[in-house]
């Protein structure tokens, strides 16, 4: 038995709505997806053939990267050395416009991952995929799955219909807090609006870079709307957000708050201090400075060894070789981010599955 090392972000892939998910849909939606040919909901954010979406040695001969359990087991566990891994499914249920359809597909994804992944490998855990388009239905799905301790977080996309701090989402956070489920915000967009304030970019590369700013906007929204005051037990995990932007972002937030806090009197302390208590980040990608001193500086600036969560982002191609830990991280951070921090952030990991 190897040491505990929890990979907080791996991506099993749904083959398709009419194939993979069909057995998990009720009769109405079975008929609908077949007769209307509702399929192909891979997110524009992650075209399966794009290099980032699957490392060459993690691509199966047939199907999408992450679609084959045995291959994922070999890669995420045998090769990368994790003891457990959290599955975050990025199929497009989160981006459907029809709230009932979105809800049906989210439900199907959660039932599929439970039956075909979690039940077959006890090292796996999963995030509950929810339709944030319809907060009431998102809560229903959380409640439906909350009794199953193998679900350890609630998955939402970094770019949705509105900023995540807005009050129409608060009931979702109430449910999440009640069940000790952190909110996992993962890179990805519903494509409701441009990926940045300057408009629609030409390239996937640009879009991917802009995700970092979208995460920053979500953190500010959660803080300034007062979500953490309202739900003090809530933790939010930024997944695949990059890390090195954090220090300058924290300082700018503190400075801005000092200048304009009069409009948000319920935010009673510096935003960076709220971030250290409530925000966590997965460590792939890290977007590192090129040298060890730069990495040491970034860690020193963030000044909180609790914020980092080990993740490989398997099968996304963030690094080569067998070591998913970004280069130059100090040993003190590495030991915390692999076990202590995930266990603290996802309390349900410690519960019997």
């Amino acid at each position, binding site marked *: 038995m190897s040491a505990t090392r929890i990979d907080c972000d791996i991506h099993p892939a749904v083959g398709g709505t009419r194939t993979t998910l069909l057995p998990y849909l009720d009769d109405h939606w079975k008929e609908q997806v077949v007769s209307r040919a509702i399929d192909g909901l891979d997110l524009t954010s992650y075209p399966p053939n794009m290099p980032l979406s699957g490392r060459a040695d993690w691509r199966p001969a047939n199907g999408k990267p992450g679609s084959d359990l045995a291959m994922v087991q070999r890669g995420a566990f045998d090769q990368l050395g994790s003891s457990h891994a959290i599955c975050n499914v990025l199929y497009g249920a989160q981006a459907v416009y029809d709230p009932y359809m979105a809800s049906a597909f989210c439900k199907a994804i959660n039932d599929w991952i439970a039956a075909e992944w979690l039940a077959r490998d006890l090292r796996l855990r999963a995030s509950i995929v929810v339709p944030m388009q319809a907060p009431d239905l998102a809560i229903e799905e959380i409640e439906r799955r909350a009794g199953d301790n193998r679900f350890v977080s609630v998955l939402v996309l970094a770019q949705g219909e509105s900023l995540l701090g807005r009050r129409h989402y608060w009931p979702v956070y109430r449910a999440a807090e009640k069940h000790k489920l952190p909110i996992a915000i993962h890179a990805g967009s519903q494509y409701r609006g441009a990926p940045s304030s300057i408009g629609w970019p030409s*390239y996937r590369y640009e879009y991917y870079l802009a995700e970092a700013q979208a995460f920053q906007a979500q953190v500010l929204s959660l803080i300034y709307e007062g979500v953490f005051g309202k739900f003090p037990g809530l933790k939010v995990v930024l997944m695949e957000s990059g890390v090195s932007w954090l220090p300058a972002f924290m300082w700018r937030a503190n400075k801005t708050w000092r200048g304009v806090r009069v409009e948000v009197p319920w935010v009673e302390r510096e935003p960076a201090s709220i971030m250290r208590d409530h925000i966590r980040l997965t460590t792939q990608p890290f*977007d590192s400075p090129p040298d060890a001193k730069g990495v040491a500086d970034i860690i020193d600036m963030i000044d909180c060894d609790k914020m980092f969560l080990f993740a490989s982002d398997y099968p996304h191609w963030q690094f080569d070789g067998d070591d998913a830990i970004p280069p130059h991280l100090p040993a003190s951070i590495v030991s915390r981010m692999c076990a202590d921090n995930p266990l603290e952030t996802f309390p349900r990991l410690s519960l019997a599955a």
Partner: protein
Amino acid sequence: MSDVIDRPLLEQEATAKSRLRIIDCDIHPSLHSRADLNPFLTKRWQEHLKSYGDHLRTPYIGTTPYPRSSPLIARRDAWPPTGGPPGSDLAFMRKQHLDPFDVEFGILQVLDLFIFSQQNLDFGAAIQRAINEWQLAYWSDRDPRLKASILAGQDDTEAAIAEIERCAKTGRYVQINVCPRANEPLGRHRYWPIYARAEELGLPLGIHVGGYGGHAPTGGGWPSYYAEEHQSNAHSMAATLTSFVIEGVLERFPRLKIVFIEGGFGWISSAMWRMDQHFERFRDEVPHLKRRPSEYVREHFWFTTQPIDEPDEARHLRSLIEWVGVDRLLFSSDYPHWDFDDPRFAFRTPLSEAERLKIFNSNARALYKL
């Protein structure tokens, strides 16, 4: 916080200041009233300005939907005793800012009537010309320290280029301004004729935060609070940086110089690391890029320093400065706005005389050929 600068160093800096004159790359002059533009507008546009006014993609005609923490976003002590809005009275600007800080040159950034985002393009072109003329008549002619920028509404590219030609002939403008929140990201091909002209004329392209491009201020939607919207300025600038680099603008225009104004500089090193880290993965999507993204940034971009980041530890600000590079930074105060950076106190980390000279003066002098 043992290494935050204390009194003795400030005194040392005060003596240095007597030898170092400042070039302030972001000063906001204001119209006293919109009627100031009438001498530069035809009757038709005077009437239009009066009866229709702005047409911007924002809910209110008289104010921002994100109310600032002070009237007109200004320092409370910046209202001229003679009346009129902050930044509208040259004598008071001299007395409050230019003279006491020994400003050798100030680069004007006009935000009134935000010409870059006017939906009525003909109106936009008319007031763009009027404001460009007003900058000379009201400011540069009266105080040669104040240097004008050619406002060029990027979304009527043809009119923008005609205006650039007209202004450049005078030899009195130091840069060409476009706006980061345009109809499309600024790196896209439709704007390249402007960059071609800027390169030929040897004028830097100035990009001040702001604009009404119609998209939400963040990639996640419309925020509720000014605190969020204010910080989103840096996000717009980061996306603009990547657009210029990744579209290959700098491959096509290797002598183009770009100045980012009021975006601050804390975010830039991480933006470069992130671009570089993912470059290999996306390289086949952008084969027009011949070099690592950060190399384009380090050669083609300059950044004004306000709003300066304020880490608790002085050594952290020092790291930020080194990561971006002392050669890329241009001091700016943002006078008369509320988040003004005071040149005496903004840099709360030790700088050598040579570094100070570059940031406060010689970088801008060389860039703008002052």
